[in-house]
């Protein structure tokens, strides 16, 4: 039995002070984005004067023509794609194992899987760097991918596990009862049932990897991902608005998948298997 607030309570108005506080917090969180967007169009190329002396679209073209931006962007996209792919496979298999079987160390495994997202990135980063040094693994594209996969696996694992827990065991049984082999059942019933959880988990993983900087710093050699490129630009005052143009681009590529993931996993209501 869930607690349901009375209808009148649902429509109760918040006091003005609370509204003000909420507005303040939202502004504090999101005003910096507005400033980044604004200074992507300033005519001043070295300092942050307010108000900007003038607005121009020139920086879009400058950014477009800088090969180092393209290189960093390309690397970030490839790392995010590889880390997401690894997370989708490993996260789904781990979720299936934890959901389906009872084995020794199951709770510990679940905890260890979730740990990287709770640990500060710097701890994960240092740990990975020392481990890789000890094992004499040269830093490369793949070490960055492995570093990102540690926390990307978690979001896929959590999404898939949550969906599996809401999946009645009778669905797979019904499929086999009607003549489907385990392979057919996986393809026709389980996979479509998990599809939105996989897409949502994958998008979140992609967004997490795309703007990751701390773990990347520790696991990359000469590789410069987009966030690292942006960070490097801060110490170079030349053509500063280019950095802002790129930052706006990063915000958009990260926000859109997260928004889509949110829309996909939103509960559409209406239990299926006889519940509620």
């Amino acid at each position: 039995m869930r607690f349901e607030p009375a209808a009148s309570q649902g429509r109760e108005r918040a006091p003005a002070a609370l509204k003000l506080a909420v507005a303040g917090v939202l502004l504090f969180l999101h005003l910096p984005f507005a400033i980044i967007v604004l200074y992507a169009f300033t005519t001043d190329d070295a300092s942050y004067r307010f108000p900007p002396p003038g607005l121009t679209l020139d920086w879009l073209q400058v950014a477009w023509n800088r090969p180092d931006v393209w290189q960093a962007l390309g690397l970030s996209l490839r790392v995010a794609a590889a880390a997401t792919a690894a997370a989708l496979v490993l996260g789904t298999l781990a979720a299936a194992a934890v959901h389906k079987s009872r084995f020794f160390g199951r709770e510990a495994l679940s905890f260890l899987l979730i740990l990287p997202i709770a640990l500060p990135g710097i701890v994960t980063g240092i740990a990975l760097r020392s481990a890789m040094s000890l094992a004499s693994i040269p830093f490369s594209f793949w070490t960055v991918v492995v570093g990102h996969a540690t926390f990307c696996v978690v979001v896929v694992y959590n999404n898939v596990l949550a969906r599996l827990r809401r999946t009645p065991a009778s669905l797979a049984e019904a499929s086999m009862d009607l003549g489907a082999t385990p392979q057919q059942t996986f393809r026709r019933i389980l996979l479509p049932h998990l599809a939105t959880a996989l897409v949502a988990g994958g998008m979140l993983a992609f967004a997490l990897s795309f703007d990751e900087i701390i773990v990347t710093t520790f696991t990359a050699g000469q590789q410069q991902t987009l966030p690292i490129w942006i960070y490097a630009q801060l110490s170079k005052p030349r053509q500063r608005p280019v950095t802002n143009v790129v930052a706006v681009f990063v915000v958009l590529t990260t926000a859109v998948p997260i928004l889509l993931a949110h829309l996909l996993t939103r509960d559409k209501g209406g239990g299926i298997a006889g519940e509620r």
Partner: protein
Amino acid sequence: MAGERAPVVRFIGVSRHFGSLRAVDDVSLDIADGEFFSMLGPSGSGKTTCLRLIAGFDRPTSGRILLHGLDAERLPPFERDVNTVFQDYALFPHMTVEENVAYGLAIRNVPRAERRRRAGEMLELVRLPEVASRRPGQLSGGQRQRVALARALVNRPRVLLLDEPLGALDLKLRQQMQIELKAIQERLAITFVYVTHDQEEALAMSDRLAVFREGRVDQVGTPAEVYERPATPFVADFVGTSNLIEGRLAERLAGSPAPCTIRPEKIRIVAAAAPVAGGDGAVDGTIRDVVYLGSHTRYRVEVGEGVVLVVVELNRATTAVDAHAARGRPVRLAWAREHLRPVGGR
């Protein structure tokens, strides 16, 4: 009915233990081809486990199950000519109703046109042709139940397993579905194995039923046999209500201390000291409690030595006022002697 045709399902000393729990314990029974067979028992009595053993979702710890005369030991669920209506319906939420019903055909690579035709026929059979393009989430409980039935019947199985299929429906709908299920079973002439904890349901629908208790079968028989001649005190009590008479009272009424039972509706209430026909049994008592139930009234009558017998009478001419006025009245209870039956103990 059982002896005439070869059994379509046969349990030979089947047990299924989960650790120390004996969910099913040495069960042997035969289910005849084409009969409506119910497995009746309280929750945890092993009836659903038996159903899952027939479907192949679970394997017996020991014993053998024969399906159509063949050992089912090595057969996975998808190779058994048996289909199931699940308690939670287990409809596939990402498919339309028609796709759900046609699923078994799609798996067998039946051409699309025939799939549609046969799914349509099945939806017609369960009287739901108009919802074919909807999703299960848009249906009511009763409609989902019918879709689950149509989906399980589309492969034309020789045995249909039903796991408390009406459990989630309200009383009126349940009674209507009981009649429809029975009609469908007779029309298709296939074997129904029906799991329920509702004794009225089992009595109303079954050709034969098995009464389960703690993983064992107490009695198998027609509804009349199980109701009229319960094999154990548990069956007497679980199937309908029953008065269990033991010890000194049994000796006085039946002439032997062996336990016996009598159904509440077989007992007549007559005036105190009224003469009783020769051969009828009788005992004197006092009405202690009256429950007026509209069509009938339930009396609790104390007959001495702390024993209370439950008596049910139809309210042909009795009003609620009459019934309640009877409380505290000394009466005589009478019955035809054949209704007082000895029960085997266990």
